[in-house]
């Protein structure tokens, strides 16, 4: 009925999502001077 999630699956999902941080840094490096993104206060 429900796509149950084990702790292992959850941890793997979190790791892959967190792996987006270096990619984010990469995109951000190309940004200065082009746009101002919203930053958390």
């Amino acid at each position, binding site marked *: *009925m*429900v*796509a*149950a*999630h084990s702790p292992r*699956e*959850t941890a*793997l*999902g*979190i790791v*892959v*999502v*967190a792996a*987006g*941080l270096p*990619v*984010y840094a990469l*995109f*951000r490096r*190309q*940004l200065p001077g*082009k*746009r101002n*993104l*919203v*930053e*958390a*206060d």
Partner: protein
Amino acid sequence: MQVRPGFLKWSFINDRYPMTAETVTATAPKELRRELGLASATAVVAGECIAVGIFLTPAGMAKALGSPMWLLLVWLLVGAMTMSGALCFGELAGRFPRAGGSYVYLQEAFGSGVAFLYGWMCLLVMDPGLSASLATGTATYAAYIFHWSAPITKLAAIAAIWALCLLNIVSIRMSASFMRWITWLKLGVLGLLTVWALLFRLGSWSNFVPFVAQRPGSMSLMGGLAVALVGAFYSFGGWWEVSKIEGEIRDPGRTLQRAMVLGVTVVTAVYVLISGVFLYLISLESVTSNETFVAQVGSILFGPAGGVVFAAIVVVCVLGSLAGFTMSAPRVYYAMAKDGLFLEAAGRVHPRYGTPATAIVVQGAIAALLVWMSSFQQIIAYFIFVAVAFLGLTVAGLFVLRGRNRGDTTATLAPGYPFTPLAFLVLVAFYW
């Protein structure tokens, strides 16, 4: 500079303006066109939610709860909690009326880093994975009707993805028309199913007795409620997707909030009604598993042809959900690219059709690849926790945004604040 006549022959701009590349560039749309109204937005909400879940979840829920009253109450309770989330999204949509949905709201509340991670998850796995899952579901049920082999079924799933992608590239209005049409068809078929069951008296009202007491063999009430709440939560999944196409909705703040309220109301009514019909047809004691339950219902309703008829109904339901998803998901990549956080091409609007064509192609390509690899079910299982966490975080962001008074402050506020977002966060917590 003169451009190739062949190119301009196909350009709508050619009809009105001189044939130079400069004028083509100058007059081509740079932003999405606001062409959708309340009916289209509501169709996206209801169409995305009502998929295969309504046929598979009631059996597990009924078996766990063992009581008709509790089963119907859970649908109503989750409907009310979903409504609270929808009202919060409605306010967020009014505050930030642009394409991207949760990506935009997370960015405004928690900064671009958190928003990027959400978009990254959507892009990398979640949205293409769900598209692949829905397309494969559609093709699998179609294969049951037409006796397709496994490779043909896979090709049909990929064809469904690309057909909808092409439709979305060519025209958002045509996509919306298809969405409205298939949602009406879906509601009509489910309505017909109800009338058929009652008209021919195919069930028994005695199945509702005792109405309150739990049947022997069911779970404890708390355990049953936990299982049923999660099942119902999944069946309502997808109502928030409409916020991603906000860049193409007229009077977005007002329209989106009304569409979400209307859509969630329709979905709740359908779920209560269909669960009631299922209970009328089959006694709780006879419920064994999800799959046999559907076969049982099909056989009672339509005799030996029940399996095929039910498969056709599921094809309509799941295809409608896929259509809505194909429409909404690429707008996140479009919004990311507009912010410089994804490939620039994905942020471009097609000069002729006014749609985010590249973003749609990206979505279609990854989804088709996942169908081909047949690995999307496992991938979805990895990310469903994070996806629900982002959903909760988006609604929690309303506290931050109200505190900072950010966005269009004239937007319609979610009634019952702070209980509205809290009610939805409780529902999300149940999932964990």
